[in-house]
């Protein structure tokens, strides 16, 4: 009984001290696994990403479809790919609020007192939320299929569109992790995150063509990464130009991560 607790101490210490390769990747995956298990044990955390696609598809489809495209099914062909981008961005907010909650817990004190990479808990938080994107996209495509939406390209391109939306969700997660690390209350993280997300998602051509919009709004759309992601998703799912929107979206994803990942990690470190 006694021997079990710490002895033989020296060999154990050696085992822990040996730096094995890919430590950051392994630690991040272990922590992503933790986030995933937590989500699966609290299925109500997936309620928002399950209901949002249904509500937004029905609302926009029935409200605007007839007026803008003659009928709902025709409108869905332009709406659904763009809605997919909006919904993954909405889904990424949770990364920030969960992270903020985690930071207040004693568990993160333990992580910080352990020899693991300082970015591992953040990468784990981002990756662990992939399940939310998958759920929201699957529900969106399933529900809109019932209402008449059809993929006009091929499965590989459609999958590429989904991955692009998820990529933008991952990138934006870092912005919300930064908010989560800086702000004290998970509730305020959510509030600010929505303020960030709304111009990104609604300041787009998601619902209506841009021609009728004022000049300043069109200027915003020229830089808004969501617009490019939505155009790319449309091109990949129902046809149309793809090369430029995909390239610009990928550049934005890389840019956002390059700026906000180090900022979020620095903010997390500063909390110690």
């Amino acid at each position, binding site marked *: *009984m*006694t*021997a*079990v*607790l*710490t*002895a033989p*101490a020296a060999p*154990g*210490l050696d*085992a*822990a*001290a*040996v730096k*094995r390769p890919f*430590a950051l990747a*392994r*630690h991040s995956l*272990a*922590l992503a*696994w*933790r986030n995933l*298990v*937590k989500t699966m*044990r*609290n299925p109500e955390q997936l309620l928002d990403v399950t209901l949002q696609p249904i509500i937004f598809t029905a609302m926009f489809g029935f409200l605007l479809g007839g007026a803008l495209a003659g009928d709902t099914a025709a409108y869905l062909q332009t709406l659904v790919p763009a809605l997919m981008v909006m919904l993954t961005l909405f889904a990424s907010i949770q990364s920030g609020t969960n992270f903020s909650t985690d930071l207040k*817990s*004693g*568990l993160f*004190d*333990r*992580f*910080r*007192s*352990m*020899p*693991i990479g300082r970015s*591992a808990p953040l990468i784990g938080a981002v990756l662990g939320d992939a399940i939310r994107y998958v759920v929201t996209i699957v529900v969106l495509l399933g529900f809109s299929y019932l209402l008449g939406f059809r993929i006009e390209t091929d499965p590989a391109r459609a999958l590429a569109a989904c991955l692009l939306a998820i990529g933008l969700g991952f990138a934006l997660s870092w912005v919300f992790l930064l908010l989560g690390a800086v702000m004290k209350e998970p509730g305020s993280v959510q509030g600010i995150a929505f303020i960030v997300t709304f111009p990104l998602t609604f300041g787009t051509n998601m619902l209506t063509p841009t021609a009728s919009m004022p000049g300043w709004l069109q200027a915003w759309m020229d830089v808004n990464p969501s617009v490019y992601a939505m155009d790319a998703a449309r091109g990949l799912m129902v046809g149309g130009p793809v090369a430029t929107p995909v390239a610009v979206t990928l550049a934005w994803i890389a840019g956002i991560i390059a700026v906000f990942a180090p900022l979020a990690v620095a903010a997390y470190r500063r909390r*110690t």
Partner: protein
Amino acid sequence: MSTAFETEGLVKRFGDFTALAGVDLAAEEGTVLGVLGPNGAGKTTMVRVLATLLRPDGGAARVDGIDVTRRPDEVRRRIGLTGQFASVDDDLTGMENLQLIGRLLDLRGSEIRSRTKQLLADFDLADAAKRTVKTYSGGMRRRLDLAASLMGRPRTVFLDEPTTGLDPVKREELWGVVRRLVADGTTVLLTTQYLEEADALADEISVFDHGRVIAHGTPAELKRIVGGQSIVVRPSEAGSIDAVAGLLRKFTGHEPESPQRGVLAVPAENELVFTAIVAELALAGIGVTELALRLPDLDDVFFKLTGHVTSSNDQKTEVPA
């Protein structure tokens, strides 16, 4: 023997508030250093600096001679931390919590499995291994927390008020665990608000007040300052109080004090005096409604050392006879 951890002139401020005002501590390998003090004395801040969670504003802290601010990762490989609030994940099972820690410590798969099993058995959690921690009692969470901090077989373990909020039976259980750790050669830093706990476990005790060490010594030395235990008697009849006072004076050689009306208290250097007094009271036919051998508590220590009482005087350490 070499020094397992030490601090020199450690200073930590939070804005205008000075949490640590130059703390010197040291513990030899394989010993328990008790840090005794009321809430807000700086105990937790000090543990957090030693555990690399807080950067000090001045002074130095070292574990195994390694500076905590210069080489934190090397310190982190050597320590285990159990905080005041259970640092385990509510949504994971006990087993999953330990496995996660094992994975983060880069233990091999086979070692994670065997160590998880052993620790769960050792801490009496084998039956609850596959239940989520949410369903655990307070004592079970503390035990799991401690088990998690031992996954990597640390040589130095920081226990920040590990028994606060536990009932006396659970507290004794945890003491047993600490004693086993020390028997294996682990060095333990234990913070506590209970003099009784520091007395039971620590080789040396540092008393904290307002971010300073106001006294340091072995439990015996400290108790000498405070005056050790005292005998408290409350005769059932007020008329026999003089007789009791005379009896106490005769056996202890001290003048009894009367802390409350109808109660007499007198310092007792050894427990034998107590039994002798009990026998003498019976012989003289004096009835009592209260008769106790009382250990000094944190309040007594503070009162003797600082002349003021602590703000947390809700903990009494009384041993009924």
